C-alpha cells in the first residue's frame, strides 16, 4: 500500500494472547484475543472498529497503547514502532496518543478536583509553569463546553455522566495529541447526552485536526463518526472499508447479520428480520479456518480448512471471506495483485 508511508498509525499483524490458568496454576489454555490484525489510520481520519463483546476490540486498543504490549506484530505511530520502544522513549511517543474510556467515573480519580485531573498530564510532561498550566486547564474546560468557574473545583462525583466524560475528553486533548482512541466512549451515556458528546468529538476533530480510533459495539454510532469502518469478530478483522460501502454493500456475512440486528424505528420491522444463530465460540478454542464459519449461513468445507485472506474487492473495501456476499465489479488490477501474492 502506498499510503503506508503517510499513515498516522499503522498496525501490522498485531497478535495478543493471554494464558489462562486453572485451579492450582495449571496452564488452562491460551486466549487468542487478537490474532493478526492490520489496519491504518490516516491523519485527520476516523477509523471505527465494531465488534461484539469478546471480539478483542478493547484488547486491540490496549495493544496499540502498549499497555500491555502485544505478543507480536508492529504498531507504527508517527513513523516509530512503539513495540520497539522502552521507558522514556515510549512515554514521549505516547504523548500524542491519548485514550477516552467507557466509564468516566472509574477513569477519573474520585478524590481529585476537575482542575487537577486535567492538569495532571500537563505536569507529567512538564508543560509550562503553574500559572500557564492553570490557564490551559481553563481553556480546555471551555473547549469541552464546561464553565471553568463552575466546574474546575468540583469532584467527579459532583458531575453528571456527560460532564464527567467531558472532563475525561479535556484531559485526553490536554497534550494536543494527534490520535485519540475512544473505547466505547459514549456507550454509557443517555441518548441526548450521547449526541452532545458525539458532537463535541466532531467539533474537536475539526478544531484540533484530530484522528480517532473509535471503538464501539453500536453500528449506527460508529457509522455516524467514521470515515472508514473495520468489523471485528473473535480477534480478527472480517471487513474494512469506507463507511458508506461497508454499510450499504456489506461483503462479509457477519457484517450483514450485525446490520440486520439493529432495531429500526419502523414499527414491527425488526420482527421480520433474521437473527444470528448461537453464541460466539470460545477464544480459547477458536474454530479452524474462518472464525465465523460455525455461525455463518454460507459456510462450506473450505471455510474450515483455510483461513480466508483479506482481499480488496472494491476500492478500499477489503473482506476476509471465501464467499463474500456481493461480488462487486472487481477491478482486474486487484485480482492480479492477488494472483501475484
Amino acid at each position, binding site marked *: 500500500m502506498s499510503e503506508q508511508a503517510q499513515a498516522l498509525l499503522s498496525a501490522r499483524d498485531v497478535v495478543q494472547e493471554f494464558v489462562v490458568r486453572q485451579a492450582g496454576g495449571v496452564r488452562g489454555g491460551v486466549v487468542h484475543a487478537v490474532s493478526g490484525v492490520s489496519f491504518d489510520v490516516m491523519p485527520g481520519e476516523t477509523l471505527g472498529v465494531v465488534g*461484539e463483546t469478546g471480539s478483542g476490540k478493547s484488547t486491540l486498543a490496549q495493544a496499540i497503547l502498549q499497555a500491555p504490549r502485544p505478543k507480536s506484530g508492529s504498531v507504527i505511530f508517527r513513523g516509530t514502532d512503539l513495540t520497539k520502544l522502552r521507558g522514556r522513549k515510549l512515554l514521549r511517543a505516547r504523548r500524542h496518543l491519548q485514550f477516552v474510556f467507557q466509564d468516566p467515573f472509574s477513569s477519573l480519580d474520585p478524590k481529585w478536583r476537575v482542575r487537577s485531573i486535567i492538569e495532571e498530564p500537563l505536569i507529567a510532561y512538564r508543560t509550562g509553569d503553574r500559572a500557564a498550566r492553570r490557564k490551559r486547564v481553563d481553556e480546555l474546560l471551555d473547549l469541552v463546553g464546561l464553565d471553568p468557574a463552575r466546574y474546575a473545583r468540583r469532584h467527579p462525583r459532583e458531575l453528571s455522566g456527560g460532564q464527567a466524560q467531558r472532563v475525561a475528553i479535556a484531559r485526553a486533548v490536554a497534550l494536543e495529541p494527534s490520535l485519540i482512541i475512544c473505547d466505547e466512549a459514549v456507550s454509557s451515556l443517555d*441518548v441526548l447526552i450521547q*449526541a452532545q458528546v458525539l458532537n463535541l468529538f466532531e467539533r474537536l476533530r475539526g478544531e484540533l485536526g484530530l484522528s480517532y480510533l473509535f471503538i464501539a459495539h453500536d453500528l449506527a454510532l460508529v457509522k455516524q463518526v467514521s470515515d472508514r469502518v473495520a468489523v471485528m469478530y473473535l480477534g480478527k478483522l472480517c471487513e474494512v472499508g469506507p463507511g458508506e460501502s461497508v454499510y450499504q454493500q456489506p461483503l462479509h456475512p457477519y457484517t450483514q447479520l450485525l446490520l440486520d440486528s*439493529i432495531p429500526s424505528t419502523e*414499527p414491527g420491522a425488526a420482527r421480520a428480520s433474521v437473527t444470528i444463530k448461537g453464541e460466539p465460540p470460545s477464544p480459547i478454542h477458536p474454530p479452524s479456518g474462518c472464525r465465523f464459519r460455525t455461525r455463518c449461513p454460507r459456510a462450506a468445507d473450505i471455510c474450515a480448512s483455510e483461513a480466508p485472506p483479506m482481499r480488496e474487492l472494491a476500492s478500499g473495501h477489503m473482506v476476509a471471506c471465501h464467499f463474500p456476499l456481493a461480488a462487486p465489479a472487481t477491478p482486474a488490477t486487484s485480482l492480479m495483485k492477488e494472483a501475484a501474492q
Partner: protein
Amino acid sequence: MTDALLQVEDLRVSFAVGRGEIRAVDGVSFSVSPGATLAIIGESGSGKTVCCRAIMGLLPARAAISGSARLRGGELIGLPEAELRMHRGSDIAMVFQDPARSLNPTMRAGAQIAEAIRTHRQVSKREAQAQAVELLRMVRMPLPERRFHEYPHQLSGGMRQRVMIAIALACRPKLLIADEATTALDVTTQAQIMELLLDLQQQMDMALIMISHDLGLAASYADEVVVLYAGKIVEQAAAVQLFGTSGAVRMRYTRALLDAIPHLERPAHALLPVVGGRPPDPTALPPGCAFAPRCSHAADDCLAKAPALLEHAAGHRWACWHPCENGTGSGN
C-alpha cells in the same frame, strides 16, 4: 377499559430527602391489555424503573406511594408483603438489566430455576428439575442439560439473561416486566433475546412491559409507548401512531430523543441535532413544563404553567403547549 390486565392510575412515588422531596413518579396512568407490549421510555432518572418497582412492591419502605395499580381488578399498592409475594413470580415477574448481578453466583443455573418453581408450586425436587430443563429448552439455551449444572460465571451474558428469563417464566406469569433487559447485551444478542421474548409472549399469552431508554427498540417491538420525563408521562400513543411512515411524534422531548439516535442513513460526521442541558434536578423541578429549559420552542407559557397530558387525537396523548407539526419541526 375493564378488560385491562394491569391498570395503573395516578401513581405517585416520592422520597423524602433532607427538607425537600423527590417526586420520582408524578401522576402516571397507563394500562396494559392481556398479551400486549407496552414500552416505557425515558432517560436515567426519569422514573421508569421506580414506577415498575412500585407496581412490584420492590421499593424501600421510605418511599411514599399513592395511587392505584390493579392487576385483573385486584389492588397491588399497599398490599402486605406476604400477599405481594403471592403475586410476584406467579402473576408478575421481572427481568433486570444486569443478569450477572441478579443471579446467585454460588448456585448452579438449574437450581436457581428449580428454586423459583418450588417457591410457588408444590412439586417434588425431581419434578422441579425436569421443569427447569424444560424451561431452559424453551428459552432456547444451547445444550440445556449441560447448562443446568453450570454456574453463572460459566455462562455468557446472553445465556445468563436466558436463565433470568427462564426463572421469570417459571410460573407462567401473566405480566413480564423487562427492565432494560437487553441494554447490557450486544446487538445480535439483543435481537435474539427480543425475538425470544416476543415468541414466548405469544405462546403464553403474556403481557410485556419493556422499560428502556432506546426508542428504536420500542418502535420495533412495542404496541404502545409511554414516554416519561422527570416522573411524568409526556407522550403516550400506539407505536404505529408515533413511528414509521404514518406516525407522528408531537411532544418535543420525544422528537429530540428520536433525532438523537444515530441513524445509518445519516452521512458520516454530520452533527446530530442536540438539545442542551440535562434533566432537571428532581428536588427543584421548574414550575412549568419540566422540559422547557432545554426545549428550542419554549415560550413564556411553557415556563409559567405545566401542560396537562391530554388526549389530542384518538389514542394519542401528549403534554405540550407547542407540539411538533406532523411529527417534524425539530430544531428549527
